[in-house]
Structure formats: structure tokens, C-alpha cells
């Protein structure tokens, strides 16, 4: 039971980063279906940064520098690809869904190719141990330590980002402006808000945060091994679904991501079942997502609606 909870909270971080990124983007009125691909590219960036740094210091990494390198590289790579999305959809008014799907195709392919071909993975094991190291006294505190303190820094970072995003969206002026743009960009524009600037920043920051999710999955959750980008892509799609589950509220995402993660790893944690039963259990997260989608749409109260201008591009000269 404890191991299920610990595993869930750890994996939840991937979903959490992804869904916060998507929420920020969607609040600016842009449905970014490229998030799965962007998470992949974040992985590529994080892995590249880690491998370069580990090579430089010959495997003797300092904790803080390694974290910074992984963070900055993953964020920057993901934000660059987010920039392509922003350029195409904000400045060039291209269809958001189509652009997003193209980003996902590109991102997954790029990451697979890039990590397979260019990234030296010899030190990934060691780097992962450093990145996922928890407080030294956590293991002395019994179940409390295991459930709350046994994770790498990025788990807490994700929760902090979620809370900070909630605060930003609801309590600050810039957050209010961002929400206004998502609801009605023409009105926001008339009120003197720089719509294009806000949209660009929201998409870049959102993409960067989502990219951290992919990096976390490889470097922390599965311990620095690398197989393929399609797993991250699947996790990315679940993160996009999680946005609806958490009703566009980042602090709800914290709980939502743990629930999603719990269903996701259930199949691996239960022992003594046949291959068929295991394959059936693996269907659970998708079934749950579908049920949640239906439930939120059937309930459909005012508080759980997406931003009103979601998916529509804003062109000032068009009404």
C-alpha cells in the first residue's frame, strides 16, 4: 500500500508538470495538443544537459549544479519548441489543433532520434541517483518519511509550481490579464493588455514547465534508463486529459495527478496476476479518463468550463 502511494506520488510529478504547462497555455486561449511532443523534447534537453555536465565533471556531480543544468536544459528545449507553436498559432494564426499534432509528431521523433544518436548515456545511472536523492534522515521517520520525504527535489518543485501557478492566476494582476485573454481577447485588447506578449509568454513558460515532466520521468522516475519516446508521449496525452479532470485549476491537478498515477501503476504493483489480467489493468487509466470526461461534461456546471476563447486565434482586425 505504502509502495503504491509512494510510486503514485513520484509518477504524479510527470502528469503534474505536463498539466500545469497545459493549463497555463489554455488560460491564454491556446489548446496546445503539442504538449506530449514538447514533454518529449524537454526530455531530450534534460538528458543532453545531464550528459554534457556529467562528462565535464567525470561523474562526480554536485547536487545543486546537476539540478540546475537539468532544469535549465529541459526548460529551454521545451520552450524553443513551444516557441514554434507560438509563432505558428499566435503570429501566423494557424490552426491550433493541427499545429499541436505536428509538434507532437516532430517532438516524439526528434527526441527518439536525438537521444539514441547524440546523447551519451553512460553516466545517466549516477546522475539519476543524485537527482532523485532525498533527505538523508527520511528513512528514519518510518511511514511518514517514506510517504512525504522520500522523493527527489523535483517532486516538491512540481507541487510548489502548482501552488504558485494557482496564486499567480487568481491573486495577481498579470494572472487576471492572462485569464481575461483566455476568456475574451478582444476585450482584453481594448483594455490595453498586450495580448500577443501575454500569449507568447504563457505558451513559452507553459511549454517549459511541461518539458520538465518528461525530464523527470527519465532522470528520476525510471532511474536514468532510456527506451523510447512513445511512453512519454502517452503520459503527455494523459496530462492533457488531466487538465479537464482538474477543471483548469492547478491545485486540483496535484490530487488529480496522484489519482491518475495510481491507476497507471496499479498493474505493475499488484503481484500474482496473469498476463491477461495485467493487460486489462493497464487499460484502467484510459477508462477512468473517459469516465471523468463524461462526468465533467454531464455535470457541466459553470465552474468547470474551459476558457471561453479556447482554441480560437485572435486577429485584431477581425470581428
Amino acid at each position, binding site marked *: 500500500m505504502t509502495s503504491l502511494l509512494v510510486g503514485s506520488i513520484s509518477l504524479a510529478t510527470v502528469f503534474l508538470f505536463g498539466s500545469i504547462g497545459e493549463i497555463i497555455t489554455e488560460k491564454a486561449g491556446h489548446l496546445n495538443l503539442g504538449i506530449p511532443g514538447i514533454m518529449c523534447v524537454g526530455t531530450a534537453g534534460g538528458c543532453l544537459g545531464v550528459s554534457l555536465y556529467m562528462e565535464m565533471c567525470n561523474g562526480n556531480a554536485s547536487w545543486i549544479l546537476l539540478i540546475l543544468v537539468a532544469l535549465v536544459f529541459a526548460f529551454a528545449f521545451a520552450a524553443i519548441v513551444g516557441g514554434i507553436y507560438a509563432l*505558428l498559432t499566435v503570429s*501566423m494564426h*494557424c490552426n491550433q489543433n493541427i499545429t499541436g*499534432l505536428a*509538434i507532437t509528431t516532430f517532438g516524439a521523433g526528434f527526441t527518439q*532520434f536525438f537521444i539514441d544518436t547524440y546523447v551519451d548515456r553512460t553516466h545517466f545511472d549516477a546522475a539519476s541517483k543524485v537527482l532523485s536523492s532525498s533527505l538523508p534522515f527520511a528513512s528514519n521517520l518510518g511511514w511518514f518519511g517514506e510517504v512525504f520525504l522520500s522523493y527527489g527535489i523535483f517532486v516538491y518543485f512540481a507541487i510548489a509550481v502548482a501552488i504558485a501557478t494557482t496564486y499567480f492566476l487568481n491573486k495577481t494582476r498579470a494572472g487576471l490579464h492572462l485569464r481575461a485573454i483566455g476568456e475574451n481577447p478582444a476585450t482584453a485588447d481594448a483594455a490595453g493588455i498586450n495580448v500577443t506578449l501575454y500569449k507568447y509568454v504563457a505558451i513559452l513558460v507553459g511549454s517549459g514547465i511541461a518539458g520538465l515532466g518528461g525530464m523527470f520521468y527519465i532522470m528520476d522516475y525510471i532511474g536514468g534508463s532510456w527506451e523510447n519516446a512513445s511512453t512519454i508521449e502517452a503520459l503527455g496525452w494523459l496530462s492533457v486529459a488531466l487538465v479537464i479532470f482538474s477543471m483548469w485549476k492547478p491545485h486540483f491537478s496535484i490530487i488529480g495527478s496522484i489519482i491518475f498515477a495510481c491507476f497507471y501503476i496499479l498493474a505493475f504493483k499488484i503481484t500474482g496476476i496473469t498476463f491477461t489480467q495485467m*493487460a486489462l489493468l493497464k487499460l484502467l487509466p484510459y*477508462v477512468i479518463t473517459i469516465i471523468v470526461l463524461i462526468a465533467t*461534461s454531464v455535470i457541466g456546471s459553470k465552474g468547470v468550463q474551459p476558457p471561453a476563447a479556447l482554441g480560437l486565434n485572435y486577429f485584431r482586425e477581425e470581428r
Partner: protein
Amino acid sequence: MANTKKTNKEPLFHIVKRDNMSWPKRLLIYAIAIIIGFLITSVFCAVSNEKGKGVWDMFISVYKGSFGTERKIWIFLQELALLLGVSLAILPSFKMKFWNLGANGQVLISCLACYACMYYGDKAGASPNFIIPLMIICSISAGVIWAVIPAIFKALFKTNESLFTLMMNYLAVGLVSVFITIWFPKGSGSVKPINTIVLPDIYKKQVLTLIVVSVLTVFMTLYLKMSKQGFEVSLVGESENTARYVGINVKKVVIRTLILSGIICGIIGLLLVGSINHSVNENMANNRGFTAIMTAWLAKFNPLAMILTCGLITFISNGMSQVRMDFGFYNNALSNIILGVIYFFIIGCDFFITYKIVFRKKAKKQKKEVN
């Protein structure tokens, strides 16, 4: 204020919407974009390969990979037909602005249904004359079920269809692995092809697929252009409210159109298993559902133009396998990168077709002319 001067200055350029652009001009823009996309990727390949291949070698390899031998041409035609088939399936739903991202799942689940018929028919020693009609019925109904469930919820509760259909993709993949573990419990994961009960070959294996998809293309062109139902589909896509005001039952149209999508996906699944592969695996849809969205979009939802776009995409992705061999890249993700880059350029074309950029000097001149 200090800023006033700055804001009063006219911006360097601004964007204006264009009137309709003529077809030759549009084609020219697309051609330029595709060529630029190709050039960038070929430079990338030339720089990063270790066999000393140059920039132009990629074009030769891509051509060879698609049209090099007679066998390759047949494979090209087969892949083109399959992609075109899936594009035709999603076409009416996208025209209706129903974001059906689930064509992968709809094709895959009908592959599974088709293989199930073959597997149990083979086990029971039934005659193909009895099983083949059953295969056709089962795969088409499986495709319809997978497509119509999200449609019903979309019609009744406005459930987000893009995520729903996406999850249905993963469900279909999961179900295939469930059944593989049931049928082949050793855990090896490999599926035995069943060659006793299959759809008949006409001259060559690929010809049946080609014929079926050609018929579907003609049907879909006529359906969308000539029929009342096709008109209803485009009206719902243009404006749901207008459709409602003229008395169209929008819910009925959504569900009916997705049934049509499901039927076509079912046919593609049937062809994939019954005629081409004779077995099933999780990757059988080969991401055609997503690729089809791009091809349908690029063709501006015109079934005949889709032949061209599907041809282009198939040409690139088939050609890339040759590039991998010639250039010494041992990674099949390369074609996704290339396709992604080319997608970006083609998507960007939309901007230059619908808008034009007016620079400061030009704008002044125009003003003078007006005065």
C-alpha cells in the same frame, strides 16, 4: 509622456487579410514551402551522416525508396491507398469540426475484430465462405462502435471529443494486447499469421486494397459534393447555429457522420488484416490516424486533392527508409522529424494564403494613392 512619440510611430509592418487567392498561386506557395522544408532536412541529413553523403543525395534516396523497384512501387501504392482510406474516414468528421483523433483506434479495433474471426474460424475449421462475410461484418461494426461512442456523448453532453477519441486509441491498443495474451499465452507476444482464411487476392496482393480505396474516394467525393447529407455535414461544420435554425438535427448529423467514419475505418482494418498482413499487432494502425489528419487538412478537405497530399506524405515516409539505409542512420524516428519539419512549413503556408504583410513604406504609398 516619454512614450507617446514611440507609440505614434507606425509599426514596421502590419498584417492584412487577403481576398481569395488563385489556385496556381496557392500551389506555388505550397511548393516553395515543401521545397524549403525538404532542403532544411536534407542539409540536416547531410551534416549529421557519417557516410559522407551530400545535400542532394537525400532526394535521390527518397526517390529510390519510393519508386526504385517494381516491388517498391507496389508498396508505395498500397501505403498510399491505406493512408488515403483513413483520410477519407476522418474527412467528413473534420469537415463537421468534430475532432476525431481516434482513427488509429478505430482502425486497430477493427483489425482486432477481423483477426478474432480468422482465429476462431481457423480453430473451428470453418469454411472461408462462411467466415469472410463474418470478418467483414465484425470489423466494420467494431470500427463503428469505436467511432460512435464519442459521437453519442459529444452529441448529448458536448463531451470533449478530441480527448475521448484519443483515449479510445489507447483502449484499442490495450485490448489488442489483452487478446494477444489470451490467444498466445506463452508471453512471447508474437501473433501467428493465419493464411487459410483471407480475402481473395486479385492479380497481386495490393490490388484489392487499391480498388476498394478508389471506390471509397469516388463515393466520398460524390457524398460530400452531391448529397444532402454531405451538405448537412459542411453546414454543421461552418456554423452549428445556422444549421439548427434551418432545421437540421445536429445531433443526428454528428452521430450519422461518425458512423460513416467508423465504417470506412472498419474497411481499412479489414484490408490490413484480411488482405495484407493476416495477423495483428499493437502498431498495425501505424499512426495513420494522425497522419491522415494532416493530409486531410493540407488538402483543405478535398478528397481528390487528398490523393496528392497522401502521395506526398507516403513518398517521404517510404523514401526515408531508403535514406536511413543509404545514410547509415539506424533509427526509424528520422522520418517523423522530417515529416514534422515539412508539416510546420506547410501549416505556415496558411498564413501567407489568408494574410499579407504590409510594410510601413508601402502603406504610406497606398495612403497617398488613396488621397
